[in-house]
């Protein structure tokens, strides 16, 4: 039993030990063999080691080089800064287009979708900072500003600040990462024009399995008309208990089917309160897949075909009723030459009759889109998109878009 207690003590002490040591040591390999704490280590020994390490860290502090996630060999203290501008010209065959996204081309004419200023840098050996400010013609919006831990043990990682929750595959992405230039309908309807985000904390762990499997949980504010429509949304509610926050849970798995084929699969849940009365809840469940073929083994590695699809199911408790609706999308991208790609997309969202929380949108809606994009370099993109939008409560209409995107500053790295 004694061994058990020490082991658990170790579990709780190790994270702080890692912090006190500067960069955490790798936990595998021969180096680890020498540093792995023995089971019979006593408390006094740990305390002494901690003190010694703190003193050593203080002594070494001025010369310490913080590890960073930059591939650059140059050392600079200015953060990496980049600016990405998205501009569009739109033409709709209706006077009242119903684009959902806060950064969509929303009316006929020229549109500034957004000018994103992204700032990122390692804070110290323990944290990295990421910030995204989005400028529109009349204001600035703090899209994201969060810190990510860099050296937690046991494959853990935590984030805190304002961030897009990692629900599904589409939610945490920014407009310049999108293959189509407007927001997915289902995200606009279930979460709001900015996708789901909020102030909060997130923890995640990479499971010790032979394949990539990550489990994450976050707790964020359930308020915000732009990003939590299914939860408190624009309602002004005071927080009384932990039940007044939104909780997001997700499992993300990746299967490298071969060098050329990749499959990503995720399941997510976003759970939180809604404003229709104390205790009433909204639950959103989702699953997403991303299947990509890129023939890297045959030296045509600029070519790829990718299929992405998501399905979301929503339950909302309101007085005397349980509302159920769902929606999703699927799109296929064919990057057929080094500079060109084309894609098709279909989206649908169901509606709930007499929806008390969403009276404007209580019938089904389908939208089909096609796009053709030209990438002069990886720092610019010109594209054309056509939408055929079919809200059941009014006549179908067309949308035509021409978009231009430019990116300057630090070279960003692309997530898969």
């Amino acid at each position: 039993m004694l061994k058990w207690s020490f082991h658990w003590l170790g579990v709780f002490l190790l994270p702080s030990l890692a912090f006190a040591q500067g960069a955490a040591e790798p936990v595998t390999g021969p180096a680890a063999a020498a540093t792995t704490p023995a089971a019979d280590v006593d408390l006094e020994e740990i305390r002494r080691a901690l003190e010694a390490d703190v003193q050593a860290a203080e002594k070494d502090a001025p010369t310490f080089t913080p590890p960073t996630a930059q591939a650059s060999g140059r050392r600079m203290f200015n953060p990496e800064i980049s600016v990405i501008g998205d501009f569009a010209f739109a033409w709709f065959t209706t006077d009242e287009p119903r684009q959902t996204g806060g950064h969509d081309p929303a009316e006929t004419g020229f549109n500034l979708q957004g000018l994103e200023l992204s700032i990122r840098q390692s804070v110290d050996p323990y944290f990295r900072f990421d910030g995204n400010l989005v400028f529109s013609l009349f204001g600035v919006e703090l899209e994201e500003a969060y810190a990510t831990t860099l050296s937690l043990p046991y494959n853990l990682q935590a984030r805190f600040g304002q961030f897009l929750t990692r629900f599904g595959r589409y939610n945490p992405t920014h407009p310049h990462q999108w293959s189509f230039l407007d927001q997915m309908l289902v995200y606009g309807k279930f979460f709001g024009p900015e996708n789901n985000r909020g102030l909060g904390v997130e923890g995640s762990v990479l499971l010790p399995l032979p394949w990539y499997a990550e489990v994450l949980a976050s707790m964020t504010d359930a308020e915000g008309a732009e990003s939590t429509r299914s939860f408190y949304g624009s309602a002004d509610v005071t927080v009384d208990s932990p039940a007044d926050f939104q909780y997001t849970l997700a499992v993300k798995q990746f299967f490298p089917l071969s060098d050329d084929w990749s499959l990503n699969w995720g399941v997510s849940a976003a759970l939180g309160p809604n404003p229709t009365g104390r205790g009433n809840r909204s639950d959103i469940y989702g699953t997403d897949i991303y299947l990509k073929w890129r023939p890297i083994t045959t030296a045509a590695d600029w070519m790829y075909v990718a299929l992405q699809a998501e399905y979301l199911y929503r339950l909302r408790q309101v007085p005397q009723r349980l509302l159920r609706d769902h929606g999703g999308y699927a799109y296929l991208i064919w990057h057929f030459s080094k500079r060109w790609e084309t894609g098709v997309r279909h989206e649908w969202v169901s509606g709930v009759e007499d929806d008390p929380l969403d009276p404007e949108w209580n019938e089904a809606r389908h939208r089909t889109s096609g796009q053709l994009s030209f990438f002069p370099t990886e720092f610019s993109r010109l594209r054309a998109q056509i939408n055929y939008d079919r809200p059941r409560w009014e006549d179908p209409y067309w949308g035509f878009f021409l978009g231009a995107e430019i990116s300057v500053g630090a070279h960003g790295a692309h997530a898969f």
Partner: protein
Amino acid sequence: MIRFVATLLFVLLGAGTAQARLNIVTSVPDLAALTKAVGGADVDVRSLSLSTQDPHFVDARPNLALALNKADVLIVLGGEMEVGWLPVLQRGARNSAILSGGRGYLDCSNHVALKEQATGAVDRSQGDIHPGGNPHYLRDPHNGVACAEAIAERLAKLDPEHAALFRTNLDAFKADMQKRIAGWEKAAVGWKGSPVLVYHKSWTYLIEWLGLRPIGTVEPRPGIPPSPAHVARLIAETAASKPRALLQEEYYPAGTSRLVAEKTGATLLHLPGGTRFEKQQTYPEYVDAVMSKLGEALGREEGE
């Protein structure tokens, strides 16, 4: 119960001892081959990319982050070669040892003299340039040797038990390379001053090592695909110099190069982009393959 606890403790705490080999991940296969030459049977080596992939544009597939999660060492080309994909993997790996600046992170560009370092103002109107210098330095085998030295030194530091072995392997590798370099240089004596074209400025180190004369690039600027006007100008300007060869990695599109080669009289050489590490090819075998292809265009008999 006691047995269960003992087993659990062994699994949880003893995992490090069970896996007493260095687990090394490299960004490109050339570095993996160099690491294998130095580490021998006592290290596990894996490359994040294949030789058929353009190392500028590798997908940050999550299984690669998993490889980095378990890695003791990450060895990269540096010079911003991997800037578009590696940082995502490093962050996703949850392993502070392999973050840039970590004890297991080795940037080989710090151990060679980089050419074409930017002086003065730099922006992307000059193309997708690497301000710190041209990162395709492994095309000169002298730099391969320099990297192998840096790798051996790092491995010895991280695994002192096998340090002597790594140094012995390094000495053997260097001796072998010295002999081979002398052979390659002898074979290339007659190539000195031969005018050549390249697709991307990725052959600079090879060209300077062998004393070839670069007279034009198919890409108007690094990373920018050729326009018809540029191709016409390139042909007009270089045809008279009678370029002997057009050097290009197999992962770049060949249509334009074929036309340029045909119009200028150059031989289009489709060269492997890197060591076929996944097929157990070694780094000297890769240089050999490149040299033998070059021989097809520039002639063998002169040097032999």
